[in-house]
């Protein structure tokens, strides 16, 4: 569609067709790669959580909890190189802004909870993991509702409820495994679903 898109008049049917075509074009553009951030963060959280669980179980040294800060330390550079660089948004829509807002808030709150937990160190792990799982499930539920994908929103809801309840039953050393499992259900799988949906 180069200069055939001129300024001469055209029929009402053609007008309506053009409006639908343009709306569809912009929607498809936003669906493209929309799951990639969730996959990147899902892999990072799963890998770090599994590493923390392994180190806590094998050494019993609670200082390995400091490894949680590897999530933002690895996640942000990875996000920049996988999707952030090309993400210099040439257009913004409400949906994209809302989803970015939800996950941005989740990231800030999670880091804040982890920093606060450092002051209460040994006991804190029992409280921060359920809180982060709850926030993670909530953010995924909202994302699923925004994109009208009920598999994603149900996964988020199950993560929030089951993850928080189960965290009462597991030992502090195995709790990171619960977070790893939650990241798979609430980040990795929804991310893959979103990326497959666009194809």
């Amino acid at each position: 569609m180069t200069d055939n898109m001129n300024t001469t008049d055209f029929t009402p049917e053609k007008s309506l067709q053009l409006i639908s075509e343009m709306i569809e074009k912009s929607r498809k553009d936003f669906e493209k790669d929309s799951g990639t951030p969730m996959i990147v963060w899902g892999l990072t959280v799963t890998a770090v959580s599994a590493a923390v669980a392994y180190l806590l179980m094998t050494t019993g040294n609670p200082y390995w909890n400091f490894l949680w800060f590897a999530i933002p330390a690895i996640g942000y550079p990875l996000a920049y190189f996988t999707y952030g660089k090309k993400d210099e948004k040439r257009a913004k829509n409400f949906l994209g802004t809302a989803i970015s807002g939800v996950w941005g808030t989740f990231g800030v709150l999670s880091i804040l909870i982890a920093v606060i937990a450092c002051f209460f160190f040994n006991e804190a792990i029992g409280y921060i993991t359920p809180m982060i799982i709850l926030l993670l499930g909530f953010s995924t539920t909202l994302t699923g509702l925004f994109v009208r994908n009920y598999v994603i929103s149900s996964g988020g809801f199950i993560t929030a409820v089951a993850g928080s309840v189960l965290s009462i039953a597991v030992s502090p050393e195995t709790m990171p495994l619960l977070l790893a499992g939650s990241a798979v259900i609430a980040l990795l799988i929804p991310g893959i679903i979103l990326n497959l949906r666009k194809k």
Partner: protein
Amino acid sequence: MSSPFRKLNPLLHSELRLAIMSLLMELDEADFSYIKEKTGATSGNLSIQFEKLSEAGYIEIEKGFLGKKPRTVYRITGTGSKAFSEYVDALKSYLNLP
């Protein structure tokens, strides 16, 4: 006897201007290169149409920079949004849509 057909806004009843407005109705904002890519129009033609839409108060134009590169961002205004909705309503009268 009055016509069942409502008058179509001549400013919007033009292929390129309608394409621009349709994109901006769906978006919060978009820059020049995005709209150029989606419409497939030439830069010169696009600039002329942006100017006409801006003069009518249908879009607002914000010139700025993204890093060191100049960047122009376009947004639909309340007047533009209302005009677009009225245009779509008028279209329906031609197509017998509810």
